[in-house]
């Protein structure tokens, strides 16, 4: 395709892409209508559902993609689309919030309300950018990384209990799944740096590897105390164990340790060393452009949402509302409680970004190994103590 130089060129490209997609959709839909019998009466149902939406829902159920199906859960809610929407809007919110803190206005023109459509505008800009890769890079790995980063975020969503009913997959060892997936994150960072065949990305990749491994151990130990108290590796059971009292009340140290390690795992300021833009350009993201970059960013923000959700699950009582609230608050249902808490965690992380500079790698590692690890073990002993004294009704054997 020719280069885009002017606005008419851009419009032409847009029309070509959209027209192509439309033609493709018509062909696929046409083929489906004549081959799958369930779809062939789609027109009638579409008309009927205008007056009665239930018909449409039932119809979708019959196809296996209805509101209670696994497909819906994975794709729409509480799965990927939901997370992507939250990720996109948290990007907008982050920019707006930081702008307010920095006495400026932030995104303003895209969308009606304070540039709320800015993330969409950014994505559409990124899609039309040229996709560049360094000439000696390992192309296969280089372009797999955006998918892998997204996959990590999406896998975490699978075990995240949004409410009692809304859960994609219930597993007895969902906690282990979470940590297995988090453990995969440094590998993507290292691979991205390595596959770029460039100096700064490589340094960024190494930094990411050091940082994430150093912070995973305190994170695991902090989570282990939660497992001890609740007596289960199942996140749903962990939430149910907090129906009366949240674990942040019982183990504030553990919550702080987990929160700090969370920041490090997410590469947020003050721990954004793998992508420190003033030191190593953009770290492992240096060579990425266009939607490959956008994909990594989206994946990172989905992981941001997912890990904030896991913090909510482990320490903030998941979908449970606070016990001491007056009666009127029952109208807030479990999904809303979960979302509110998760967003609060995310806002806290954004505030920390606004007021802090970046750590240095040696300080960071020393901080992790000499402070956080000790605090995590201290927290573990507290958990054991609580368990032995029998102050907490749940809990498994040691």
């Amino acid at each position, binding site marked *: 395709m020719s280069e885009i130089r002017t606005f008419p060129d851009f419009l032409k490209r847009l029309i070509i892409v959209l027209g192509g997609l439309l033609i493709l959709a018509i062909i696929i839909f046409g083929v489906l209508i004549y081959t799958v019998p369930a779809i062939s009466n789609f027109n009638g149902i579409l008309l009927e559902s205008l007056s009665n939406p239930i018909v449409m829902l039932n119809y979708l159920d019959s196809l296996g993609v209805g509101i209670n199906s696994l497909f819906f859960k994975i794709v729409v809610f509480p799965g990927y689309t939901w997370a992507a929407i939250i990720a996109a809007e948290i990007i907008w919110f982050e920019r707006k919030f930081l*702008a307010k803190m920095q*006495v*400026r206005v932030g995104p303003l023109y895209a969308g009606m309300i304070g540039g709320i459509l800015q993330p969409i505008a950014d994505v559409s800009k990124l899609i039309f950018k040229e996709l560049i890769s360094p000439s000696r890079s390992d192309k296969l790995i280089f372009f797999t990384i955006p998918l892998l980063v997204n996959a990590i975020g999406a896998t975490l969503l699978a075990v995240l209990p949004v409410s009692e009913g809304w859960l994609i997959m219930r597993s007895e060892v969902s906690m282990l799944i979470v940590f297995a997936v988090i453990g995969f994150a440094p590998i993507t960072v290292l691979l991205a740096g390595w596959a770029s065949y460039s100096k700064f990305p490589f340094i960024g990749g190494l930094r990411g590897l050091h940082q994430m491994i150093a912070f995973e151990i305190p994170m695991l130990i902090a989570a282990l105390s939660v497992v001890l108290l609740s007596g289960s590796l199942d996140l749903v059971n962990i939430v149910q164990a907090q129906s009366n009292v949240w674990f942040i009340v019982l183990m504030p140290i553990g919550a702080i340790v987990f929160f700090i390690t969370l920041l490090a795992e997410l590469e947020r300021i003050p721990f954004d060393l793998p992508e420190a833009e003033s030191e190593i350009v953009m770290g492992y993201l240096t060579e990425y452009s266009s939607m490959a970059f956008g994909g990594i960013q989206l994946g990172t923000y989905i992981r941001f949402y997912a890990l904030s959700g896991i913090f909510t699950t482990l320490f903030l009582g998941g979908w449970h509302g606070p016990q001491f609230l007056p009666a009127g608050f029952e109208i807030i249902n479990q999904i809303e409680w979960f979302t509110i808490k998760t967003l609060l965690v995310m806002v806290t992380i954004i*505030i920390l970004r606004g*007021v*802090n500079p970046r750590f240095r790698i040696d300080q960071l590692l020393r901080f992790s190994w000499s402070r956080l690890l000790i605090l995590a073990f201290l927290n573990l002993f507290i958990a054991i103590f609580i368990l032995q004294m029998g102050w907490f009704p749940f809990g498994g054997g040691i």
Partner: protein
Amino acid sequence: MNFVSKLFSAIKSGMKHLFMRRLTFRYPNQKLKFYGDGYQYDPKEGVGIAGYRGRHILYIEKCTGCSLCVMMCKGISQAIQMINLPEKKVPVNKKCSFPQIDYAKCVYCGFCVDACPFKALFETNEYEIVSYDRESLLFTPEQLAIKPKYKGTCEIKYGKRGAYHG
């Protein structure tokens, strides 16, 4: 614990600014108010008169075509050229030569205004000189003679919730 208290002090300072007014100057909607009608020069006293140094204004009826402004600009940005406009009948300007200014080169230092002994070339408040090509930035004497209509209303104000543009 010193670490934690200092960190909280920083967070507090940041959170305080969530309630401050924004300083941002929303440019196309707001425009800055300038003092005076632009930079002018009093050749008798040898002192300028304070004002914004923007696009020039040429008083054609005063210009004698002495090209002092050109000589001054020659060592600075070479933006001024003399061109002949025979159709302009100015009594003081027998040769009918007037300056034309290339705003692609001008650095707005205003020394051409200082160089003019006849109060013919001043500067104005207008600064929005934008174009798609270089040719449109070449302002002929007729274009320079037009008085710009710049209207700025906005200036920094200091209120209880911080400074703002208003």
